């Protein structure tokens, strides 16, 4: 059996070119560690990205890497997976790359359930092009292209993914080592399309846009870390929990010490619960929000292919077609 690799083994010689203080650095570290922890092999791992600051990622991971074109990474990764289903393929993308120009390919990769681990670095801004608002920017975002505030209502990556028929959706914060490692490992273990939204701080163009819940000081009250099969608790010594109000069809916070029986247990296979959790604002739901295994696209593709993409006959047998004749 092969020697276990360390995070360093997944680092390249290339100088990292993000702005000092960019959340991408923390994500890079976490991914390198996760790859080592899950025992990934560099030669059978590929990182495919689009264009954007986030999409520079492949240059910094010692594996196969393809920095493609804006918005198309899921489509290129789909082709790669069809050519070699055994590869461990990660897609790294930004909120603009995946939800602006790339929305269609993301939708189809998700609904087909192609076995791709998609990491969406959501900083709610177009970083690389110098800070215009993105499809995840909140209404009123002031940016070079919206000096008086944006008017487009944003799309929610989670709601979008589930609407497309995604089988896996998780969330983490760039600098939350533990939470991020947890979802990365779960995503890696999932054979199918997984979308992991990572709240990433763009220190230059959208600093602290997630401050309301990423701030460590208040984390206990603002973050809900989900675990399948465990009660949804948060707050100081996990004193509060969530309950489903059947009258309003919504989640509400309850005193978990007073009425523990009311507290919902997280069921990652419940699509309605997932949708409620995605929209939750205080606390913000983190971890694996939805997970429902199903046959992956390439597995279905190969299962449906008579020769599993092998050449079992020669072109000779096909040239003559239905009817042929001979001329002496």
């Amino acid at each position, binding site marked *: 059996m092969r020697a276990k690799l360390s995070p360093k083994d997944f680092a390249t010689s290339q100088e990292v070119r993000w702005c000092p203080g960019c959340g991408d650095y923390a994500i890079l570290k976490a991914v390198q560690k996760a790859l080592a922890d899950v025992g990934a092999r560099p030669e059978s791992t590929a990182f495919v990205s689009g264009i954007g600051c986030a999409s520079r990622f492949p240059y910094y991971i010692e*594996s*196969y*890497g393809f920095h493609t074109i804006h918005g198309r990474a899921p489509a290129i990764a789909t082709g790669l997976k069809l*050519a070699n289903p055994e590869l461990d393929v990660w897609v790294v993308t930004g909120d603009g790359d995946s939800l602006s120009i790339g929305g269609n390919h993301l939708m189809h990769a998700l609904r087909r359930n192609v076995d791709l681990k998609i990491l969406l670095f959501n900083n709610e801004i177009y970083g690389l092009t110098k800070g215009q608002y993105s499809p995840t920017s909140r209404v009123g975002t002031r940016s070079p292209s919206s000096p008086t505030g944006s008017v487009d209502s944003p799309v929610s990556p989670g709601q979008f993914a589930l609407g497309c028929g995604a089988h896996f959706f998780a969330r983490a914060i760039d600098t939350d080592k533990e939470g991020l490692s947890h979802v990365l490992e779960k995503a890696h273990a999932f054979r199918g399309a997984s979308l992991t939204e990572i709240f990433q701080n763009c220190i230059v163009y959208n600093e602290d846009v997630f401050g309301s819940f990423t701030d460590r000081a208040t984390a206990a009250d603002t973050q809900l870390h989900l675990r399948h099969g465990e009660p949804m608790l948060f707050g100081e010594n996990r004193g509060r929990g969530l309950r489903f109000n059947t009258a309003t069809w919504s989640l509400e916070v309850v005193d978990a010490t007073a009425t523990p029986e009311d507290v919902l247990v997280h069921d990652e296979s419940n699509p309605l619960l997932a949708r409620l959790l995605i929209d939750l604002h205080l606390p913000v739901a983190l971890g694996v929000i939805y997970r429902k295994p199903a046959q992956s696209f390439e597995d279905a593709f190969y299962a449906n*292919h008579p020769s599993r993409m092998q050449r079992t006959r020669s072109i000779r047998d096909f040239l003559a077609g239905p009817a042929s004749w001979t001329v002496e």
Partner: protein
Amino acid sequence: MNKNKDVDSVVVRLAGDSGDGIQLMGSQFAVSTALAGADFSTFPDYPAEIRAPAGTTFGVSAYQINLGRDPITTAGDAPDVLVAFNPAALKVSLPLLYRGALVILNSDGFTARNLAKAGYEKDPREDGTLADFQVVMADITNLTLEAVRDFGLSKSEGGRCKNFYVLGVMLWMFDRSLDTVEAWIERKLAGQPTIRDANIRALRAGHAYGETQELSASIARFRLPPAELPAGTYRSITGAEALALGIAAAGELANRSVMFCSYPITPASPMLHRLTHLRELGVGTFQAEDEIASICAAIGASYGGMIGVTSSSGPGIALKTEAMGLAVSAELPLVIVNWQRGGPSTGLPTKTEQSDLYQAVYGRNADTPLPVLSASTSGECFDMAIEAVRIAVRHMTPVILLADGYLSNAAEPWRLPDIDSYEPILCNVPQGGEGSAQRQAFTRHPETLGRAWITPGMPGLMHRIGGLEKDIATGHISYDPANHQQMTDMRAAKLAAVTHFIPNQAIELGDDTGDLVVVGWGSTYGPIYQAARATGVSFVHLRHLNPLPPNLGALLDRFDRILVPEMNNGQLATLLRDKLRVDPLSYCKVSGQPFLIRELVAKIEAVLGEAS
């Protein structure tokens, strides 16, 4: 009148409603013709609507076939025989006919309603419209219903057999056996015995109808001399089938699987459909969400080590141009097949045109050179597909192969190739070599300038590629000015390198020097061939458009004048001016219809007439 007419070739046109099964009838007639050893060429001409309203002129579906002694290279300028199922079919076909042609009409179709729909104030059968033609009228619908009476089919079901009834008549007229058609019906309709038997009955009834007085008295049967095709085994093939087979054959020659990624579009879809039946040849088909995704998936497949192929027609190719740039920059093999159609924009989807040459050669942002090929005949699509894959993997570059709507559907006899006679296709497998994997990935073969095809999964060769400019030596990102110049020059040199691997341009017909040479490309081969033959001028037909064959300049210099007929507004003429500094005369036809031989003959004679 004598019962048998000896002719060299006959042009038959079958025309009716989209619902009349004209296309099916035509292709079956073609196969029977072929099996009897005649050379032939067909031209299916159908509307953009799936089932346009019955009786309308825009809803007419036609199938023209030219059969006889070879070489038959076009579906023929003008039909000698027209079968019209209704007034609309007559209306649109009549202008094409020579005087004296035989016109067979389905009288049942000539109702007042249909006459009106076709825009006939008077019944053309009575007002002298058909005076110049030999007319035969038959109540085909009723005759067919008669024939299939015992099967207890509904009137409409029974009526649907009439295409086979007429096919029976045609087969009698050309003295062909019914066997192949019957075998085909047996196969196709095995599931519906009643329908199957009814159709066979109709077919035989039609044939019998010929034998009997009614018809044989009035018209002659055609007797065609056997074609003098080179010895070998033949089949009838369309361009779509040949290109699909060629791609699969290329995979076998390269010993790689093929991943065909496409999004349906007229007239490219038939190739996708055909490839879904070649899966045991290691061919996979992926129907993507759009053209961008399809070329991207093909690029991903090539990156993964398979031969990535994508296909579309003009509007879809336009969407692929950004990704082509990525394939050029990342230096990945890829074949892009463009089945050209009438434009601009949605244009005339089912009509043919060859107006995407500019787009293929010049249609990308930045200096992004890539090889461009084209196929001249349906059968040739096979060889050009292999050539396209060969160039793509040899030079590690995307290659555009131009075909068109005419080739996609037109059938011709095709001599089965001996696959063992083809050179294997060699891939640039990593040579080891020194330096980092990054360096190795961008180490180029000295003659082809193709880089090593290193694919994910290979141990120890992990590296990064992308669309940013790369250092020519290390393969890492580089914005260095001098390096960008070197890389730009390298990309130009790589295209030029292709020149050393392609054959010299041959002359199809005529002397290798003289007053006038006609230069063509693509599906205009057929009509130009006949026109050059008729006028005795020299004829050069291009298959390699970018780069052009090494000797082409010298070859053309041996002629005083160059005439370039194209189904576009002069795109090859531009290319020749640009690359060879010659100044050809353009003869452009942009009507969605192929050239007629007589149009070309007239043009050539006019040019010869002018003092050179």
